[in-house]
């Protein structure tokens, strides 16, 4: 058990190194010179040279990389050239907003997608099954910006129930915060809900045909116990693993959703940073996101390991 976890963690290290190189390399692909951007209108050559020195832009690429990694390892993600703030502070300020959004979305997807999948598998080829499939298909195919705009039109403009934008911190007013977050979370969750529903459905269908479910029925167990204990317990394993990966997907999906609802989260941070060639911020955000992805994948594997007795040996 412990050796498995340790081995799994060791395997992630090369991945993180690789990611860091890619993240660092990204800036080479971005057009434009940051020193020029900073120097402003005058383009004073002396100022530009000075800026290049301060930000190590005059060093060879590999030196720049090592300096950057060294700083990152000390928890120093550099400074935003534009906002004149440590990137670390920006990340800690914006990350919770996006995490809240993603968590709410995954919660909605779980509470809606999984029960829908169970019902459509148990009531296979009935109106309930067809209905659930139509909902899932729309969830996957409707673009989120369109869904977001439609929801704003309906709930904010026409009905006036929910604010269309404007973020309130949960520490200020939790109810106000939830009011502003519920629509974005719903929009963000739509694809994941559909994916959960489809996976739960197919996993349940396979498990309901299995020999051990027949055994459970042969024991005389009542149908709810057969479905929720004997079938679901096995069908949920791949879905849970998928959930951890989906959480990562939601973090990136949040970029768009935050734009639609103007929520000051990670997504807005990175979009602004890219447009302003704020390399340090781009690197910091992407590195955090990528590390988060790797961590979530690790969690997915560990969850799979924990819920699956066969893996425990």
């Amino acid at each position: 058990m412990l050796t498995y976890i340790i081995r799994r963690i060791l395997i992630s290290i090369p991945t993180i190194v690789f990611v860091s190189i890619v993240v660092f390399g990204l800036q080479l692909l971005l057009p434009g010179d940051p020193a020029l951007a900073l120097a402003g209108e005058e383009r004073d050559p002396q100022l530009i040279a000075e800026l290049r020195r301060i930000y190590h832009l005059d060093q060879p690429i590999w030196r720049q990389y090592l300096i950057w990694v060294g700083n990152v390892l000390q928890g120093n993600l550099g400074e935003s050239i534009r906002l004149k703030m440590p990137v670390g502070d920006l990340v800690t300020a914006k990350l919770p907003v996006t995490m809240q959004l993603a968590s709410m979305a995954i919660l909605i997807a779980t509470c809606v997608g999984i029960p829908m999948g169970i019902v459509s598998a148990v009531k296979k080829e009935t109106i309930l099954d067809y209905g659930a499939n139509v909902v899932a298909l729309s969830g996957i195919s409707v673009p989120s910006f369109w869904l977001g705009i439609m929801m704003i039109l309906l709930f904010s403009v026409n009905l006036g129930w929910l604010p269309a934008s404007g973020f309130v911190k949960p520490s200020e007013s939790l109810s106000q915060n939830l009011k502003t977050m519920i629509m974005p979370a719903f929009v963000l969750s739509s694809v994941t809900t559909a994916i959960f529903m489809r996976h739960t459905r197919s996993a349940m269908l396979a498990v309901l045909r299995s020999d051990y479910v027949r055994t459970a029925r042969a024991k005389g167990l009542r149908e709810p116990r057969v479905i929720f204990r004997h079938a679901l317990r096995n069908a949920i394993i791949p879905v849970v693993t998928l959930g951890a990966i989906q959480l990562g997907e939601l973090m990136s999906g949040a970029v768009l959703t935050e734009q639609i609802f103007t929520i000051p989260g990670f997504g807005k941070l990175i979009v602004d940073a890219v447009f302003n060639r704020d390399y340090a911020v781009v690197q910091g955000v992407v590195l955090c996101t990528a590390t988060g992805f790797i961590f979530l994948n690790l969690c997915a594997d560990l969850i799979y390991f924990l819920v699956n007795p066969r893996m425990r040996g």
Partner: protein
Amino acid sequence: MSASLLAVGALSTEFKTDQGRFRAVDEVSFSLEKGRTLGIVGESGCGKSVTALSIMGLVPSPPGYIVGGSIRFEGEELIGLTTERYQSLRGNRMGMIFQEPMTSLNPAFTVGDQIGEAIIRHEQVSQAESKRRTIELLRRVRIPSPEKRYDDYPHKLSGGMRQRAMIAMALSCSPDLLIADEPTTALDVTIQAQILELLAELRAETGMAIMLITHDLGVIAEMADEVVVMYAGRVIERAPAAALFASPQHPYTIGLMGSIPRLDLEQDRLAAIEGQVPNLVSLPKGCRFRARCPFAVAACAESDPPLIEVAAGHEAACLRAPLEVA
């Protein structure tokens, strides 16, 4: 007749599939008395498992439907029984073990948990009492160190041990009827013999009746009191075991006898009879065995022969029975 533990009369079960609709079980009748062993034998696909599942009320539906007949168990009609009542019989008065021991236990729960679950379901006992009884059951089916095995997950057990655990589960509430659907097919030859021996011992101890499904006449010879031979969904011969082996009446049974796989030989299914089982979706007119039958005459193409008594308690569905065979 009323004394029969299980009386199946003209049971028909159909499947609706993309290829069409067909009768996997066609007007099957037999009965089983308390404490006796009934052997059901026949080639793969002849409807043995579907017959067993029909009795248990476990035919997957869709695509399967019981379309006619009657199943009386301890005098009670099972066809059309309420779900609630059926559930209280299954695992309690009648237990079943399956052809596939490797996949018949739930991988997510311990062996002890799964056996105890049946006891708790049918007899309102405490967790501690169910554990005590489960360990006792594991001991009875000769699983070594039952206290340890109680907490094992199925994947730790070999096929033979899993089948023993399945037997323990089926026996947990002392049923009157145990349906064993090819309980040894998936196991090694030496393990097969052990499991059969165990079943015979348990039957003697408990007095339960066993409906033993197999494709192996050797097993029938060893275990069964009565035998039902099935072919393409129908019963084509029915007799006490001794009579069947002494003078088989249906050409199909005779064919099977020519190919008894012996327990000590590594031999598979009954394959010695020439030809193919007819497609159930489009059955030819007349006797279903006709195309493969060395005794067939023109009249065999006219109609499907019914079961007729050829000797006391011995029935065969063949126009030419009783056959004089050397």
